[in-house]
C-alpha cells in the first residue's frame, strides 16, 4: 500500500493546477449553451493543446499525443473537480466512439473522424436500441442490404440520445438475417444528413427531449463506413459498451455532487436550524459519504489493476450499478433536505440550484436504466463476476 504519488506526479499536479488557474477566464460558463458554442469549442481546443483533453490521442489524429499514463489521467480529473472549471468535452462520440475507432478502425477512418470529434466539431449519436431490442440488444432488426459498394438501411432506432444534434451516427444493423443473432450484426457509421433519415424527438420525464426516435427508409450508405468487419458488429459494440459503463459510474462526478450537497446542507435552514445540524439528515449524508468514499477507493483499485495490466474483476463490474444508484440517492437526499422547496422545478424566487436536484432525481433514474439496466448489471455481476450459471434459456424463438 502506498497512497502518495512520486515527486514527478506531484510536479505534474502543480503544473495542471496552475494551467487551469491561469486560464480560468477562457472557460465557458453555464450561459455558453449548445453543442458547437464557440466558447466551448475554443476551451476544448485549449485543453487539447495543453494536454488536458484528448491527452493520449496521437498527434496525427489531432490529439495531444502523450504516452498513456493512468495516474496523470487521474490527476487531471481530480484537478478539474477541484477547480470547478468545466472539464474536457465528453459524450458518445468522444468517450465511446473514438476509443473504439482507435482500437478497431482503419487508418482512413481514424484520419477522417478523430480530429473533428475530439474538437467537438463533429457530434455523434449511438444507434443501438430499437423498440424490440433493449436489454436484448442482439435482437435488433434494422436491416442493411448490400447494393454494390453500398448498404441500403431500413428500420428504426429508439432512445437515441443527441440524434437531433448529431452529424454522424454509429449504428448497429443486421447484415446477415440468416446467421445466429449475435453473428449477423454490423457496426456502421454514416452521416445523419443522408437522405431517408427522420429524427423525432422523444420527450422524457424531465420535460425535455434528451433523446429521439430515428427512422431509416432506404438509406443508402457507403460500405466504407463499416468499423472492423461486416458481421462482427457485436464484438465492436461490446468494446463501446465497456467505455459507456465506465463513464456512467465515474466516482469523481459523484464526489463533486456530494460536495454540492454538503454545501447545500450547511447553508439551508428549516425552522431556524441548519440542515446539517439535523441529526437524521446528517446521518443519511454520512451514509452516502461512506459509499462515495468506497466507490472512490474502488476506483483506485481499478486504476491499480490497469497499471499492472490485470483485469479489474468484480471491482470493475460493479461500477455502473453502484455509481448510478449512488447518484440517484444523493439527489434524493438533497430533495428531502430541501423539503417542500425541494419539489420546485421552474424558475422562481424559492427555487434552489435551478431545479438541478429534481432534474437529477429523474435523469439519474434514466441512467440506472440506460446503458444496461440495473437488473442486467446484476446478471453480469453474478455470471461474470461470481461465476454463477446463466438462467436456463427457453427454446429458441
Amino acid at each position, binding site marked *: 500500500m502506498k497512497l502518495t504519488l512520486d515527486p514527478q506526479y506531484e510536479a505534474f499536479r502543480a503544473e495542471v493546477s496552475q494551467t487551469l488557474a491561469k486560464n480560468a477566464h477562457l472557460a465557458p460558463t453555464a450561459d455558453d449553451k449548445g453543442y458547437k458554442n464557440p466558447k466551448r469549442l475554443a476551451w476544448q481546443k485549449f485543453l487539447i493543446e495543453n494536454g488536458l483533453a484528448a491527452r493520449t490521442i496521437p498527434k496525427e489524429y489531432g490529439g495531444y499525443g502523450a504516452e498513456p499514463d493512468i495516474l496523470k489521467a487521474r490527476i487531471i480529473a481530480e484537478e478539474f473537480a477541484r477547480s470547478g472549471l468545466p472539464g474536457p468535452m465528453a459524450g458518445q462520440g468522444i468517450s465511446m466512439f473514438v476509443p473504439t475507432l482507435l482500437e478497431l478502425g482503419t487508418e482512413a477512418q481514424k484520419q477522417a473522424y478523430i480530429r473533428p470529434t475530439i474538437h467537438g466539431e463533429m457530434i455523434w449519436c449511438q444507434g443501438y*436500441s430499437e423498440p*424490440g*431490442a*433493449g*436489454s*436484448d440488444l442482439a*435482437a435488433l432488426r434494422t436491416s442493411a442490404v448490400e447494393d454494390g459498394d453500398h448498404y441500403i438501411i431500413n428500420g428504426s432506432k*429508439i*432512445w437515441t440520445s443527441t440524434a437531433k444534434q448529431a452529424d454522424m451516427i454509429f449504428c448497429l444493423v443486421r447484415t446477415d438475417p440468416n446467421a445466429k443473432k449475435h453473428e449477423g450484426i454490423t457496426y456502421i457509421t454514416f452521416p445523419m444528413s443522408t437522405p431517408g433519415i427522420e429524427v423525432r424527438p*422523444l*420527450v*422524457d*420525464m424531465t420535460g425535455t427531449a434528451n433523446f429521439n426516435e430515428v427512422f431509416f427508409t432506404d438509406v443508402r450508405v457507403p460500405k466504407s463506413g463499416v468499423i472492423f468487419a461486416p458481421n462482427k458488429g457485436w464484438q465492436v459494440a461490446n468494446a463501446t459498451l465497456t467505455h459507456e459503463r465506465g463513464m456512467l459510474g465515474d466516482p469523481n462526478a459523484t464526489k463533486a455532487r456530494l460536495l454540492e450537497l454538503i454545501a447545500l446542507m450547511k447553508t*439551508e*435552514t*428549516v*425552522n*431556524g436550524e441548519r440542515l446539517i445540524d*439535523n441529526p*437524521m*439528515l446528517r446521518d443519511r449524508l454520512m451514509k452516502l459519504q461512506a459509499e462515495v468514499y468506497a466507490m472512490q477507493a474502488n476506483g483506485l483499485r481499478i486504476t491499480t489493476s490497469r497499471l499492472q495490466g490485470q483485469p479489474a474483476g468484480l471491482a470493475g463490474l460493479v461500477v455502473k450499478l453502484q455509481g448510478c444508484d449512488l447518484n*440517484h440517492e444523493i439527489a*434524493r437526499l438533497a*430533495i*428531502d433536505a430541501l*423539503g*417542500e*422547496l*425541494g*419539489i*420546485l*422545478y*421552474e424558475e*422562481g*424566487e*424559492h427555487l434552489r440550484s435551478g431545479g438541478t436536484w*429534481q432534474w437529477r*432525481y*429523474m435523469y439519474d*433514474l*434514466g441512467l*440506472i*436504466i*440506460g446503458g444496461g*439496466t*440495473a*437488473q442486467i448489471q*446484476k*446478471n453480469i455481476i453474478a455470471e461474470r463476476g461470481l461465476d454463477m450459471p446463466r*438462467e436456463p*434459456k*427457453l427454446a*429458441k*424463438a
Partner: protein
Amino acid sequence: MEFALSEDQRMLQDSLKGVLNETASLDRIRKIAVGDAGEAAILDGALTEFGLAALMVPEAAGGLGLGALDACLVQEALGYNVAPSRFLATAVAAKALAGKADLLIASGEAKFALALTEVSSRRDGAGVELKGGKLSGKSLLAQSVDGATHILVADTAGAWHSVSAMDAGVTVMQTIDRTRTFHEVTLDGAEPLASVTPAAEVLALARLLVAADTLGAAQAMIDKAVAYAKERQQFGRVIGSFQAVKHMCAEMAAKLEPARALIWHAAHALDIADEEGPMMANLAKAHLAEVGTFVARTATEVHGGMGFTDLVGLHYWYKRIGVNRQLLGSPEQARQAAAELQGLVV
C-alpha cells in the same frame, strides 16, 4: 371482528372510480398539466357533481356526514388517476372548522385552499403572524388556491384561521408535479373570518389523506408495471417471466398491501376517536412516503427506457408521489409526531 370495508364504502369507491375512469383519463390529465383550464373545469365539474365537497360535513349541516375512512378511499381513487381535486383541502377545512363553516362548505359556496406548510416547516422567512387581530406574512406551497374563495391558514402560534381569498396575494409556485397547482400566499393585515386551535386529529387527517393519495398513485404504478411486464418481450420471452422482474413486482406489492391496511386502520381509529388515531395517521404518512418512493422508482425500472419517456406518462405518478412525500411534513417529522403522540418523547 371484521376488518374490511362496508358495503357502502365499496359502493362509494366503485362509483367514484367509474367517474374518474370517464373524466380523468391520462389524456385529460396531460392537458390539465399544461394549463388547459377548460379540461380542468370538466373534471372539477364531474367531481363536484359527485358531491365531494359535502362528504365530510355532518348531515345536520347539509353534508353527507362521512368519515376519515371514506375520505381516504376518495383520496386514494384521486391519487390512482393522478387527478387534481380540491377534496383534500375541503375535507381538512370541514374537519378543522366543524360547526363554523359547515353550511358554506356543504353548499359549495366556500371553496377552501390550505396554507399549512409552516405548521411543519418554515423556510425562506415564511410564516403568518396574528397581531392585533390581523394576519400578516406569507405561506409557501399552499394547495388548491386556484378558484378558492377561502384559505385555511396556520399562524406561527399554532392557531388556524379562515380568511377570504380576496384578502390574499398569490403567486404560482411551479413544482415538479403539474397535475396540481401550488401557490405562495401573502397576507397583509387580513381579517380572520373564523379561528380555531386544531386538535392533533386535524393535522393527522390532513397527513393521512396525503398518504392515501400516495397509496392510490403507488397502486396505479404497480398495476401498470405488472401489465407491462406481462406484455413486453425480450430474449424471446415476456420480461415478467424473469425472476428479477417478478421479484421487483412482488416486492412492490408486498410493501404496499400492508400499507393499505395501515391506512384503513388509522382512518378507522380517527373515526371512532381512538386515542391511537393521530399517532397511526402520522406513521401512515411517513410509511407511505417511504413505500411510495420505492414503488415509484421500481415501477419505472420495470418499464425500462419506456418508463423514463413521456410516452406512457408514468412520470405523472412518479412526481405526484415525490411531491406527496414532502407535503405537510417530511417522513422524519411525521415519525417525530408519532413518537410525541404516544408519549415517547419526554
